[in-house]
């Protein structure tokens, strides 16, 4: 990676591409248009070093960049034009902000003399994107392009990562400049890595060393700070059971005996109920989302809460913390490991495992009763997990299939779980899987999507076709917007208001994009179909017709306490 390069006489648009190269960018997801044409023209001269993926919609570009970032740890990069090109990014920006995903979006903008005049394809991109970016900046002079872009990459990828948008006017793209690049590694007003306070860790350690029923709750922050090994060492030393948030899945191997499952609305029984039984709750790189806590006034009240987070605004935001540690998780965990004692909590841990067995038993018995011999979502995911040994990169959309996957896929690898958690963006999975496959060409990348969500961004099949991207797609088709239907069944007296949804022939649709596929409707055909699905070299679409009215349980209903989790 170049830190500085010799001064080169060039244009603003060429400076954009040179800046990206200096940041080590190899892939850009984008869509050209009027106001970004000079940048696309400059890109044309650098195609040997920079790969550009033409998507079918700008939302697809940003979700692909998110999938790329989430599965690789690198910053995703997006190009789009002004006006509608930029506004089509909004959902992805909001998604990346709430799920802490490093993305840099570069948008073209009308010439600076036209700003504010309602010019063709002009929109107030700065104003619109301010609430959904970690930082944004408009550049109207070519000389500002390189310093702004390096700052953008620094801000997007450091601290709690997030999306950054740089809006570049067309005149700045055309303007001649002397280009040189100086990498940004600090911003005065922004503290990317808070200084660890030893006394905070000491206080946490003293709580943990006397804890009788400690519980650990890990979030995506562990992976964002590359603290997976530190977490494993710490957990094995202290013997504390490890539960995960939805986005934290993969941070700790699911096949490790200390792993006890997922918390939250559709998390496992024991980690939810025992949140209200533990004496010390250690939360790492997570933010106590309302889907995790249920009723906050009845959440872990009996426990001393330790919260490790890099974002000061998250400490005490939702849950009053007894021992905050404002720090990078990697650093905090390694110091905490040194200060804590070797311990085991076998009886306590065993209670989780026992409860998990019972939970699976109850769920399975209920499902067999209501849906005998039917193809069900949980069976598909369970079999997929076995066949891939929990080692695939699994990208999910939003809804029942997402929660089923979180429950039944055994994520053993870090950065292998890509899903839209905080924003709950339907349509996320297909483009995100495109990005994840580009970042991990050697890995099996499986997108699991509902029939509803798939139809929100199915145009990205075109991106897969044109760029020969070998994403494996499973559509779990129940003919409903299943999660909403589940709520209608449980809380709106079965008034299925607009949740019955029809679909095209997905296999024929895939075929029209030159993607192979098949539809499975019977349980006995699943095994063979999954083998074919996994063993096909290129892209493949497997549509599975699953039980129409299956529900996701366990469930903590809105407003209930985590202790009031329902099994049916």
């Amino acid at each position, binding site marked *: 990676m170049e830190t500085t390069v010799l001064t080169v006489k060039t244009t603003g648009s060429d400076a954009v591409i040179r800046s990206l190269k200096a940041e080590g960018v190899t892939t850009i997801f984008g869509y050209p248009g009027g106001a970004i044409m000079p940048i696309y023209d400059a890109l044309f001269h650098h195609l040997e070093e920079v790969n550009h993926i033409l998507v079918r919609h700008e939302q697809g570009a940003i979700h692909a960049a998110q999938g790329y970032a989430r599965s690789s740890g690198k910053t995703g990069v997006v190009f789009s034009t002004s006006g509608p090109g930029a506004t089509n990014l909004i959902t992805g920006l909001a998604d990346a902000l709430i799920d802490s995903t490093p993305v840099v979006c570069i948008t073209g903008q009308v010439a600076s003399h036209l700003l504010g005049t309602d010019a063709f394809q002009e929109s107030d991109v700065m*104003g619109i994107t*301010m609430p959904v970016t970690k930082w944004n900046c408009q550049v109207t002079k070519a000389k500002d392009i390189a310093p702004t872009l390096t700052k953008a990459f620094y801000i997007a990828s450091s601290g709690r990562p997030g999306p950054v948008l740089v809006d570049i006017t067309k005149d700045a793209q055309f303007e001649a400049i002397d280009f040189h690049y100086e990498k940004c590694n600090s911003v*005065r*007003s922004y*503290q990317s890595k808070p*200084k660890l306070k030893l006394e905070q860790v000491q206080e946490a350690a003293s709580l943990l060393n006397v804890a009788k029923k400690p519980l650990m709750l890990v979030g995506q922050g562990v992976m964002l700070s590359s603290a997976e090994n530190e977490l494993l060492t710490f957990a094995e030393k202290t013997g504390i059971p490890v539960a995960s948030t939805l986005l934290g899945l993969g941070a700790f191997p699911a096949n490790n005996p200390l792993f006890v499952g997922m918390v939250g609305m559709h998390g496992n029984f024991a980690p939810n109920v025992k949140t209200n039984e533990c004496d010390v709750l250690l939360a790492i790189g997570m933010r106590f989302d309302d889907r995790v806590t249920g009723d906050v006034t009845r959440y872990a009240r009996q426990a001393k809460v330790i919260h490790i987070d890099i974002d*000061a*605004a998250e400490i*005490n935001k939702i849950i009053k913390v007894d021992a905050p540690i404002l720090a990078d998780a990697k650093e905090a965990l390694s110091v905490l490991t040194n200060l804590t004692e070797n311990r085991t909590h076998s009886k306590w841990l065993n209670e989780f495992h026992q409860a998990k067995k019972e939970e699976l038993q109850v769920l399975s018995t209920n499902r067999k009763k209501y849906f005998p011999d039917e193809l069900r979502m949980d069976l598909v995911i369970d079999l997929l997990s076995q066949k891939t040994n929990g080692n695939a990169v699994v990208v999910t959309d939003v809804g029942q299939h997402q929660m089923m996957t979180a429950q039944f896929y055994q994520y053993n690898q870090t950065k292998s779980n890509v899903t839209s958690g905080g924003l709950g963006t339907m349509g996320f999975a297909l483009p995100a899987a495109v990005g994840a496959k580009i970042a991990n060409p050697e890995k099996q990348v499986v997108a699991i999507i509902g029939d509803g969500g798939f139809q929100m961004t199915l145009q990205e099949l075109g991106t897969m076709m044109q760029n020969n991207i070998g994403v494996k797609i499973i559509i779990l088709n129940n003919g409903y917007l299943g999660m909403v239907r589940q709520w209608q069944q449980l809380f709106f007296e079965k008034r299925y208001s607009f949740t019955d949804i029809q679909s095209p022939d997905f296999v024929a649709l895939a075929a029209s994009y030159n993607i192979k596929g098949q539809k499975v409707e019977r349980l006995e055909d699943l095994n063979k179909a999954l083998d074919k699905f996994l063993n096909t070299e290129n892209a493949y679409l497997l549509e599975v017709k699953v039980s129409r009215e299956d529900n996701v349980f366990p469930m903590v209903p809105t407003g209930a306490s985590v202790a009031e989790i329902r099994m049916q």
Partner: protein
Amino acid sequence: MDKTFTVSIFTENTIGMLNRITIIFTRRHLNIDSITASETEVKNVHRYTIVLRTSREQIDKVIGQIEKLIDVLKAFVHEDDEVVHQEIALYKIKTTHLKSNNVEQIIRENSAKILTVEPDFIIIEKTGHKAETKALFEKLKPFGILEFARSGRVAVTKPMKELSTYLKELELN
């Protein structure tokens, strides 16, 4: 319990800062009572003074989210007894009222001053706390106030730590 808080925010001098700050209040459905922006004693550092009524719990979370903004250097929240603050108010009334002894007396008693005397109108200026400028408003009201304008609060804090000290700390980190 809701109280009046004075929020002082120090930022880099970049375009759009006011918008970045206010949307954090908007998102939480908080209404700002007054806002002023100015330069500070340090070059290129700007200061926003925002006054609002809310709870301590809410304002602490807001401050956390404001400090998270990339271009914000530091944000402070103070209660009224921790700041020295002032507002300025201008009142326009008909010149003919000057003949009334009352007006002269009101101006004297309220330590207000006359900024200008035109053939048709005079402008009275009063600086002070909101209660004081409001009291003068009530007293002048019977004469008919043609126009009235009051600034937002400007405030400096009583604690002695200087802005430049904070900036040095930020740069060291």
